[in-house]
């Protein structure tokens, strides 16, 4: 292994600009003559709009234009579409009500878009928005998913009876019922997966402009998949030719799912830019991010696990209500179905599984993928109920899991819920995690903690996820409106440096380094001579972007295929230069050699020859620039075990996470430094979900009560421990790199591990997330310690 090749902890190429303030985030970009937009948002969760009077706003200082839904409607700006059609039990497709970018006659959540003001400055746009008079007929909203699913609930959309988007199932109900009939023990659990607000640190922003000279548009935007956004905006919303729109997602300050989607703001800006004839910039204030970024999670679930006398899982039954919010966001429907219930087998051989999911509209912000997207919800259900089953049956929490693991010789393993796991060794990860966590010494540590007045608990989470989304034909059969391949282009420049173009998009993942490592290692080009270009639809081939831990498994594989093409062509050029037969030429570490001789030419010479083809193979095209499109053969299945240890102060309810062990199997690792960083960040978000974060709407009014960083508790440095991170390795057998994906593991594994630890410490079966200090304090007062004291 070289110090910059595959497997090396290469320091990131992108860091210098970020560390010196030279990044180019969307709001850092300014276009000549730009105006500024401010969106007037609904103060009500549900209301009819009787009248909007914009006259005073239009007359306010600096105002260029004010538009409402009447304007966008008249201009035939389309509905924001949902890109994945889920078919319910009855064979009916999901209900996808109209989602106008500016509300036409009804607002359906606090923060819904009512009007846009375009002015000479941000402050003038905001000032003028205050002068818009909106006459609302306020309606009774429905906020919680359980309330919305009840008969007689307020109807969020007139064309969606009972607020049900779809009623869907997966698995074999009859087989599952039969499994329960022969069970010796059944564990039941009701649980909520708390609603979260993603809060990437960079708020969403966009600058849109229209060039009348060539009749085309440019949109700079905070986005994770610029080509997908371009496709949606052109083909589904604005009716533009795709050749007339350039989307640029420059440096993007975190996404976590929230920047996948096609939002109202960039849609309206793009449309308005032609009307006002000037570039228009918009940047969300954090309050707007809270209100209008797509939220995550928000499930209410009942689960039952059937066990035999030895603790073997016989059957698993799950019923979930999932909140999709007021409108369907771009991929909202796939998350609580195909990205959730297909993961309910976990690491276990449970032979019969049946899951029912009802997705429900409410008067809240749209809900879509947030780091993990369905897989954290599945893992939380499964790893919580397995924990409760262990406590009920008295079987050790590690042992009950081990007894039910899919064994290492069973791969490929077909689960009862559609997925076929490719490779894994779950016991290896569990064993290593228990060793790092000194599982055997836990009882003594618990006793020692008690002497200090602390309640100590330990929690396990043996998670699996499906990443590298996904084989296009498979997702197409399940309702996806897009293919989920990726593009990679490896372009040699004449003097031997390389520019990689990728359809993936980095918003913190370090692609500029990892992808450069791949090419450096494969083609023998010094890493400092490699640049990675992404995020600009005018520069890179059509690509599907970054989400679902897919960039390396799918995008990296595309780059490897492009490298293969480079080598194949390079061999022809090298053979000509060395006057040898092509089949006698071998390539290694940047050098083409004639087998068995010392004749050789360098990659650099070959590249130069390709561009200056004076002495060149007859019939071969000049140039050395190859593009590959890679469509994966399967999902990848990262898995592992996390062990959380927590200590609770029963006097204050403060939970301190005192130890965290993560052992993950990501297959082959390209850059361990970056992989560890991804794990750290995921765990932090998972701990955030378990202990701190929770989106709260007022159940009556639908006002967002957690609408700022003062109300929504983000994990801060002093809330978290340092993490012990290690890996096991079963390479992915079906992609060229043997990689599985690491971006979401922590967020998937962490919540059940920590809630298992907290409930273990308190001696209770369950506690809903977030396990706030108040909840923990109340539980501690009625828990075993108090009883012991009495």
């Amino acid at each position, binding site marked *: 292994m070289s110090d910059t090749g595959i497997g090396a902890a290469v320091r990131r190429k992108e860091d210098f600009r970020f560390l*010196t*303030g030279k*990044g180019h985030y969307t709001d850092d970009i300014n276009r000549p003559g730009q105006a500024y937009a401010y969106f007037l948002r609904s103060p009500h969760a549900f209301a009819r709009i009787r009248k909007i009077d914009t006259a005073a706003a239009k007359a306010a200082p600096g105002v260029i234009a004010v538009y409402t839904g009447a304007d966008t409607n008249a201009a035939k700006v389309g509905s924001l579409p949902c890109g994945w059609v889920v078919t319910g039990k009855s064979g009916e497709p999901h209900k996808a009500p109209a989602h106008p970018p500016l509300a036409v006659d009804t607002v359906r959540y606090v923060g819904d878009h009512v009007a846009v003001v375009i002015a000479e400055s941000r402050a003038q746009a905001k000032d003028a928005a205050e002068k818009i008079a909106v006459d609302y007929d306020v309606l009774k909203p429905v906020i919680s998913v359980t309330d919305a699913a009840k008969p007689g609930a307020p109807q969020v959309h007139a064309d969606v009876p009972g607020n049900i988007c779809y009623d869907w199932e997966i698995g074999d109900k009859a087989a599952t019922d039969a499994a329960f009939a022969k069970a010796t023990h059944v564990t039941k659990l009701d649980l909520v997966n708390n609603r979260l607000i993603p809060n990437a*640190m960079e708020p969403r922003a966009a600058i849109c402009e229209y060039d009348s000279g060539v009749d085309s548009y440019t949109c700079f935007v905070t986005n994770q998949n610029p080509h997908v956004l371009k496709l949606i905006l052109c083909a589904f919303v604005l009716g533009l030719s795709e050749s007339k729109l350039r989307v640029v997602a420059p440096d993007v300050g975190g996404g976590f799912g929230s920047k996948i989607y096609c939002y109202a703001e960039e849609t309206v800006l793009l449309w308005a830019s032609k009307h006002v004839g000037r570039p228009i910039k918009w940047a969300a204030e954090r309050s707007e991010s809270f209100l209008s970024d797509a939220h995550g999670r928000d499930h209410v679930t009942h689960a039952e696990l059937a066990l035999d006398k030895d603790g073997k899982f016989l059957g698993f039954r799950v019923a979930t209500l999932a909140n999709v919010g007021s409108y369907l966001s771009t991929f909202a429907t796939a998350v609580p179905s195909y990205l959730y219930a297909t993961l309910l087998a976990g690491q276990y051989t449970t032979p019969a599984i049946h899951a029912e999911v009802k997705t429900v509209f409410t008067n809240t912000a749209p809900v879509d993928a947030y780091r993990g997207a369905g897989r954290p919800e599945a893992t939380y259900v499964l790893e919580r109920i397995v924990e409760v089953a262990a406590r009920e049956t008295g079987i050790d929490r590690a042992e009950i899991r081990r007894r039910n693991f899919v064994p290492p010789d069973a791969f490929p393993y077909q689960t009862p819920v559609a997925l076929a796991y490719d490779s894994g060794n779950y016991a290896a990860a569990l064993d290593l995690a228990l060793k790092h966590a000194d599982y055997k010494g836990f009882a003594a540590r618990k006793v020692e903690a008690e002497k200090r007045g602390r309640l100590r608990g330990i929690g396990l989470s043996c998670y699996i996820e499906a990443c590298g989304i996904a084989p296009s034909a498979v997702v197409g059969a399940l309702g996806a409106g897009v293919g989920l391949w990726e593009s990679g282009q490896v372009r040699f420049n004449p003097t031997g440096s390389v520019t990689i173009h990728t359809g993936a998009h980095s918003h*913190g993942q370090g692609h500029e380094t990892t992808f450069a490592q791949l090419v450096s290692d494969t083609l023998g080009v010094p890493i400092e001579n490699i640049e990675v270009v992404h995020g600009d639809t005018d520069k890179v081939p059509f690509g599907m972007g970054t989400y679902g831990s897919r960039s390396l498994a799918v995008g990296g594989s595309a780059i490897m295929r492009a490298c293969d093409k480079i080598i194949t062509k390079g061999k022809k050029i090298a053979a000509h230069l060395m006057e040898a037969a092509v089949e006698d030429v071998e390539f290694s570490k940047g050098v083409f050699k004639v087998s068995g001789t010392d004749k050789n030419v360098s990659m650099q010479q070959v590249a130069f020859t390709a561009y200056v083809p004076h002495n060149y193979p007859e019939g071969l095209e000049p140039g050395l620039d190859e593009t590959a499109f890679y469509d994966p053969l399967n999902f990848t299945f990262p898995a592992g075990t996390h062990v959380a240890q927590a200590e609770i102060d029963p006097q204050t309810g403060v939970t301190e996470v005192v130890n965290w062990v993560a052992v993950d199997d990501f297959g082959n690792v390209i850059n361990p430094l970056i992989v560890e960083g991804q794990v750290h960040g995921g765990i932090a978000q998972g701990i955030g979900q378990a202990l701190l974060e929770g989106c709260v709407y007022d159940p009556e009014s639908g006002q967002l009560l957690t609408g700022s960083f003062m109300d929504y508790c983000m994990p801060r*440095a002093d809330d978290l421990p340092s993490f012990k991170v290690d890996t096991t390795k079963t390479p992915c057998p079906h992609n060229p790199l043997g990689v599985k994906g690491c971006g979401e593991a922590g967020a998937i594994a962490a919540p059940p591990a920590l809630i298992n630890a907290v409930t273990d410490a308190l001696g209770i079966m369950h506690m809903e997330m977030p396990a706030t200090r108040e909840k923990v304090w109340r539980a501690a007062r009625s828990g075993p310690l108090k009883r012991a004291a009495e």
Partner: protein
Amino acid sequence: MPTVSMTVNGKSVSRDIEDRTLLVEFLRDHLGLTGTHVGCDTSQCGACVVHIDGKSVKSCTMLAVQAEGVTVTTIEGLATDGKLHPMQEAFREHHGLQCGFCTPGMVMSAVDLVKRHPNPSEETIRHGLEGNICRCTGYHNIVRAVQAAATNMRG
């Protein structure tokens, strides 16, 4: 419109501005120093931290006119002659940043923290950076970076 004058990254600057202009808006919109970021509207996230007369300050929480006559250092002014400050170098070495958005504020806060605590414990670092939110790193590598930088800055 009042005129405000100050020294920013070693240069004297003077501009006519609206009274309500925040210092961060002055730096970004009037001086083009976009390394200082805006991540919230409640003075919580710390993406906008700069140094004023050597002390870390959230530049979203101060009017530009309040900065009359002061010396401001932003992230753009931290490296000298193209050489990274030890804190910047440590963040790079220890992978203390991912998306990079919180990084300028985090680095500026960390420089001030180490100035006040030349040999900080992990607890001191975590407590000291409580006013800077990072959504990517889980803070693990930020803590490592600050520890390493403190060692290097002590010489």
